[in-house]
């Protein structure tokens, strides 16, 4: 069937061209924002690499990073940047990106602005897994990676419970979120219970883990996190059209040919894996996954195809900046980045809500 304008609407070429130009400009703005975030990451990373007891200038940092791509670091400066400072910076970028992308997709498929790795219970169950490993030394495996593996496996529990729920009852997005919140409470109660009886040293370590920090990042950990981020982001990008369509309601999405239930579960699993793959190394860094998607929606609109890269890059820049603040604001004391993300992100979101122009914001 051919689509033609009916006789009464003779194409007004001027108007058409204008709308098209506006739409192209709108897309151009999204791409500009994405590029801006990339530049922002490079800039913050440069400053972040100068921080520490050994003095290195920003210009030196970029030279050292560039040179280090082609030869192994030799001088003290090179070793400091490459082995001590870069892992932390790259971990901040990867973790910020992954958490923000996971949050974007969870909000999208559940059509709920409150959805995030935290509200779905993923963070608190990971915390519980880590605390068991730290205080009881018990877990699925033993040895060096006990905490990581335990946190990873436990963090998948809420997702499987939610999927199990959808098999017995027709689970609406609201049911899924309530189930996630229920599990968040259950796991944090269990964590507190264990901590109450645990040794003081173990409680302190567990506490560090539950707030989230980038202090332990090393090159060995960056590889698995990178793999998880890449492997999970590709299918999420591929499904972004379907998530766009689901934003208009399940019925509309179904009538546009999207298998809503299957897509929702698939994306929930991938987003959970992505979250789990990050928090098991960094601890439960809060707020990035909730706030980065919202900020990006305010700036570039709700199209998920652009929102995934935009909020990923913005989340990376945001976490990197928060870590920068965490290391400088009370220097020489280094705060945990999880505290700063919430303390900076909360007021920032308030600010955006106060100056909102549109109904949703």
């Amino acid at each position: 069937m051919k689509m033609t304008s009916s006789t009464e609407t003779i194409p007004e070429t001027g108007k058409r061209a204008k709308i098209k130009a506006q739409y192209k400009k709108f897309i151009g703005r999204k791409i500009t924002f994405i590029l801006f975030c990339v530049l922002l990451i490079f800039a913050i990373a440069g400053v972040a690499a100068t921080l520490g007891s050994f003095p290195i200038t920003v210009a030196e940092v970029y030279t050292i990073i560039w040179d280090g791509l082609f030869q192994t670091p030799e001088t003290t400066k090179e070793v400091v940047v490459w082995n001590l400072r870069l892992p932390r910076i790259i971990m901040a970028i990867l973790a910020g990106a992954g958490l923000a992308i996971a949050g974007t997709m969870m909000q999208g498929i559940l059509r709920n602005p409150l959805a995030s790795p935290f509200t779905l219970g993923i963070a608190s169950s990971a915390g519980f897994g880590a605390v068991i490993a730290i205080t009881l030394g018990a877990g699925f495996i033993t040895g060096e990676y006990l905490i990581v593996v335990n946190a990873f496996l436990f963090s998948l529990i809420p997702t499987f419970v939610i999927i199990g729920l959808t098999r017995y009852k027709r689970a609406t997005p609201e049911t899924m979120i309530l189930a996630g919140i229920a599990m968040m409470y259950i796991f944090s109660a269990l964590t507190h219970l264990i901590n109450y009886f645990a040794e003081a040293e173990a409680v302190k370590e567990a506490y560090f883990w539950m707030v989230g920090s980038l202090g332990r990042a090393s090159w060995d950990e960056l590889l698995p996190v990178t793999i998880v981020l890449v492997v999970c982001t590709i299918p999420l990008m591929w499904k972004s059209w379907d998530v766009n369509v689901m934003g208009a309601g399940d019925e509309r999405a179904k009538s546009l040919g999207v298998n809503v239930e299957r897509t929702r579960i698939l994306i929930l699993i991938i987003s959970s894996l992505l979250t789990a793959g990050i928090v098991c190394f960094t601890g439960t860094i809060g707020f990035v996954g909730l706030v980065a998607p919202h900020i990006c929606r305010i700036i570039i609109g709700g199209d998920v195809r652009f929102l995934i890269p935009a909020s990923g890059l913005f989340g990376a820049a945001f976490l990197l900046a928060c870590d920068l603040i965490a290391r400088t604001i009370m220097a020489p004391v280094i705060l945990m980045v999880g505290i700063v993300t919430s303390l900076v992100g909360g007021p920032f979101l308030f600010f955006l809500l106060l100056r909102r122009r549109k109904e949703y914001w």
Partner: protein
Amino acid sequence: MAKLKVKNVTFNYASVPILKDVCIELDKSEMLGVVGPNGAGKSTLLRCIDRILSPQEGCILLDGEDIKNMHLMELAKKVGYIPQSATQVFPATVFDTVLMGRRPHVGWRSSEEDLEKVLDTLQMMHIEDLAMRDINEVSGGQQQKIFIACALAQEPEILLLDEPTSNLDIKHQLEVMDIIKNIVVERGISAIMAIHDLNLAARYTDRIIMMNGGHIYAAGEPSAVLTPENINHAYGVEVEVINHNGRLYVLPIRPVRC
């Protein structure tokens, strides 16, 4: 051959029967009105035809092919559905919302052709000035037009409309119905419309089925279905049906107490 055949469809929701043995035939370029009191099964029938719900018994044939055996995307290319209300939580421009209607036809990237089709549809619905506005900022009537535009961008062969005029003022009601009628005539699309307003149904549809309690109670030309006896039986309302300038008008008198 009929474009669409609904054969002995029965649908239960949690073992409560909603549709009982419903049979319908729809021709090409025909506009069918579905009327009946609240809870008669009108919306459920439309959802079954678009496979949003699966009937427990019976089958629905589109061009002779059972829709159960069709791929979801194939069905989406042929059947467009406009639900009574849609909830867009996150911001979306009107342009992007209408572009979603191209989903069954496009891959990941939207082509220049898709953008042109969105522009065509926006112009046809006279909402091109809203293109870059957010869908949550426009009025209910404009939203309804946007959702219809989205379904038209889908280029379906059958259009299912659930109460397309329920949120609209009287001018928008007539405008929207005129547009739908035009499309049905000009493009040879068939349309099934669940509608509460009996006067609009009488004025715009070719045929009406009246549902009550999940059955088809009466079917045929508007003048044959919209009789005082039928309306009294289905709705429990005493009415007068008047003929004014060749058009049928249903004038409610009082609800019947039983």
